[in-house]
């Protein structure tokens, strides 16, 4: 506008001269242009690339949902490229690529693009499926053709051709329906190249639906239990009721409510870990009892690769560790604590913590906690120095107990391991062997490793939509095979009466993989010649 009005020579009635501004598209036009662009294969390719690139990044940058501890180290700068780079990564959401809004947006765009591509293809496929093979014209001008003489009459010759082309989709055309005025057999195959491709692509909607259903209506929780056979009388956590509050950690789907929990009771009777001679684990077996309404309803084993399914919930063997029963008494034989403590793996050690005494520091009451380190196979080397043996089994367990006292912050609802260690340990650690009490605080306390057992950790999941996902996965494969390995071919056989017999003109075109069609066509022609009883010399034609 400014350009034209700045030209004084352009009178009010004169047509605008000089360069014109491009027409500004309206919102609808913009939308339809965007839609057209989304439907293009190159757009789909770019989106696929972006998806792949995002996943490449997510492979090399630790992902918070998978390994939160490493991400925390990257953020702090103690691992990875440093805190500065991590800040940038964090701002871009690269620590949770698959939960980020832009990854969702990318996926959504890909599905919109897919929809745009598929709708016209569905329509075309439905049209083509209804339409029978069309008549051929100018058969001699096709890439492959061949004439075969036979003594049979035209209808019988075409019957024979139908037999030879039995694996094709066929249609008989009377002489009146063809351009040449001779009866024809029109045949085609390879429709499932397109059909398979449509099935393959459509299956991704099902995959998405299955994943969304699983996420929205599913549940995942984790629970650690100690063995009932050792610790049932200690008031320890040997069983759990399948309720939301019982889990150590839970990730319910948005639509998995509190009422959806099953409420059955799972008791860990026994946990067993066995090793091969070379100390590689052989198996982890949790023996559990499931009870409903106070009555045991089933006994079962949960092993790696062998979950237990009860009432739509699947229980998986996820973790395990040592559970030493720690008994702490005062000099006056007052029992402060007597419970199994779950130790987690830390390199060759197993470590954990125990709350011993939780007094109120505001009233001057003491708080006591123990840090525990267990070595399952303690040995002495040639010079008498204690070393860590290679065995993961408790062949000669030795445990160090380090006492912390004072205001440890234990009155807050924190896990035992997260007490305040800033005051440092009190005195040297006690070295414990099973059944041998040791002194702490100069004999004011005795601590004993009374019994060494195991705890076992389970993952409990409820995943609806799995059947849908499996069906989708099967459809992906079922569709993929013909879409890659089926080829479209069109073949015609035309029966032209000649003398007493017939000349059958066989002609064909290949729409894909033309290189191999030459052979296919030769085999078809040979089979037809044989069936028609044609002399081998009757071959004439061009098989290029």
């Amino acid at each position, binding site marked *: 506008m400014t350009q034209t009005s700045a030209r004084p020579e352009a009178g009010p009635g004169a047509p605008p001269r000089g360069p014109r501004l491009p027409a500004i598209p309206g919102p609808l036009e913009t939308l339809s242009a965007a839609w057209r662009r989304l439907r293009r*294969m*190159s757009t*789909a*390719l770019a989106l*696929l*690339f972006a*998806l*792949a*690139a995002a*996943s*490449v990044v*997510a*492979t*090399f940058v630790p*992902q918070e*949902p*998978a*390994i939160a501890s*490493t991400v925390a180290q990257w953020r702090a700068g103690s691992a990875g490229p440093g805190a500065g780079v991590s800040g940038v990564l964090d701002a871009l959401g690269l620590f949770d690529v*698959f939960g980020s809004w832009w990854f969702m947006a990318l996926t959504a765009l890909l599905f919109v693009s897919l929809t745009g591509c598929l709708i016209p293809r569905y329509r075309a496929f439905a049209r083509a499926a209804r339409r029978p093979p069309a008549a051929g014209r100018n058969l001699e001008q096709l890439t492959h053709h061949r004439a075969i003489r036979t003594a049979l009459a035209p209808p019988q010759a075409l019957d024979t051709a139908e037999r030879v082309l039995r694996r094709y989709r066929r249609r008989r055309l009377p002489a009146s329906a063809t351009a040449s005025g001779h009866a024809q057999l029109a045949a085609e195959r390879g429709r499932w190249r397109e059909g398979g491709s449509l099935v393959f692509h459509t299956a991704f909607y099902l995959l998405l639906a299955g*994943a969304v259903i699983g996420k929205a209506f599913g549940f*995942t929780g984790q629970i650690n239990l100690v063995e009932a056979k050792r610790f049932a009388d200690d008031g320890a956590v040997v069983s759990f009721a399948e309720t939301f509050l019982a889990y150590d950690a839970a990730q319910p789907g948005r639509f998995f409510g509190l009422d959806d929990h099953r409420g059955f009771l799972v008791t860990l009777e026994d946990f067993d870990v066995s090793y*091969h*001679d*070379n100390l*590689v*684990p*052989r*198996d*982890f077996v949790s023996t559990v009892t499931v009870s409903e309404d106070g009555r045991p309803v089933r006994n079962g084993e949960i*092993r*790696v*690769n*062998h*979950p237990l399914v009860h009432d739509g919930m*699947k229980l*998986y063997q*996820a973790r395990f560790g040592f559970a030493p029963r720690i008994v702490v008494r005062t000099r006056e034989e007052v029992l402060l604590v007597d419970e199994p403590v779950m130790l987690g793996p830390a390199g060759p050690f197993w470590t954990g913590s125990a709350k011993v005494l939780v007094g109120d520091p505001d009233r001057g009451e003491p708080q006591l906690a123990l840090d525990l380190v267990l070595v399952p196979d303690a040995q002495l080397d040639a010079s008498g120095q204690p070393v860590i043996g290679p065995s993961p089994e408790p062949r000669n367990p030795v445990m160090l107990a380090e006492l912390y006292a004072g205001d440890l912050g234990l009155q807050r609802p924190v896990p035992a391991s997260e007490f305040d260690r800033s005051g440092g340990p009190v005195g040297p650690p006690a070295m414990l062997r099973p059944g041998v009490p040791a002194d702490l605080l100069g004999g004011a306390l005795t601590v004993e490793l009374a019994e060494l057992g195991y705890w076992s950790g389970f*993952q*409990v*999941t409820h*995943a609806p939509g*799995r059947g849908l*996902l*499996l069906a989708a*996965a099967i459809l*992906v*494969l079922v569709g*993929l*095979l013909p879409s*890659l*390995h089926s080829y479209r071919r069109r073949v015609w056989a035309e029966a032209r009466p000649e003398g007493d017999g017939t000349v059958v003109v066989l002609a064909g075109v290949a729409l894909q*993989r*033309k*290189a191999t069609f*030459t052979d296919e066509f030769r085999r078809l022609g040979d089979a037809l010649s044989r069936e028609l009883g044609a002399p081998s010399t009757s071959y004439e034609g061009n098989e*290029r």
Partner: protein
Amino acid sequence: MVNQQLAQNSTTLFHVAFLTYIAAMVAYFFRLAYTRVSADGVTASTAAGRRVGHLATALAAAGVLVHAASVASRGLAAGRVPWGNMYEYSSLMALCAVAAGLVVVQRRFGYGHLMGFIVAAAVLVMASGLLLFTPAGPLVPALNSYWIKIHTSSAMLSSSIFMVGFAATALYLVKDTAERRVAERSGAGYGGSTVGAASVTGAEARPEGYVDDDGQETTVASVYAQRDVLSPVLFPVVPFVVAGVFTLAVWRAPLAALIAATVAAGLGLVSWYAVPYLPPAAKLDNLAYRTIAFGFPIWTFAVIAGAIWAEEAWGRYWGWDPKETGSFFTWVFYASYLHARSTRGWRGRRAAWIAVVAFVALMVTYYAVNLWIVGLHSYIQ
């Protein structure tokens, strides 16, 4: 429970197969050198080339037999499927690649000149297996499932097929560049190889083993000019850097990186030398496509089977574990290749570059994710 004698035999046979493959590779490359290209572009072996070619085939076939015996005795020694760790997986992957090369590339397609490169790739994979050697032993509980027979074998099989596909893709890019440059220099219009498989018919489909006995070769300048239009510097340098950096990053072993880089550089140089003898670019493109289209459904199946196994073992079918993520982006890259190949403006060179990226993704998924990145699949090393 582990039969030590059998395990020992397996390792010995592995080394014998390794050396046999190296000899076969050298023989294949000699066969390549004893080739003349006649006026109409038909490559023909000289009599000596034919003899050395037979030797190469015999060596490769013998290597496959010895290698198969090594894999079988490993399985018998450990009393389980012989693909339970990275050493065994690499070994079997190399075996499948050479076997596929012999049966499909050499016998079915008749492209014996490609075999040297395929055997070389197998040798590199076996060398990586030597770096990852693990004594025969039982499976850790997480792997002890019948799914290892399904998921791992299909992943291994498709990886070896993709390996053959990569050899064809890389050589296609080399040949296509050469063909283009020669055409540009001679001023001829060039529309050939971008069409890919569509144009593969007719006269250039002559058998390769044809022997030209009268010795009166009528070499065509333009065919050998394909070598002159390519820089002999780039060909060793790029593979040297890529293989060296990758090996160094994954294994942190400078000596291994140097050896891998040198071998890769040698292969690059051989591919430069071999340009005139390679099948036409369009046919290489076709071979690459057919190989990848064959491997892709198997890879898809492997990913699906892996998801089902993950559901059985870990209680979730997909958790974006680095291995899952890796197999996913490898799948997406190969899917992009297949799409690109049927998209106007993308087929030919651009599609081939996607296939190269896809293969790099496969290598990252296999080696880097297992050895470099901590994830649920880390125990496999």
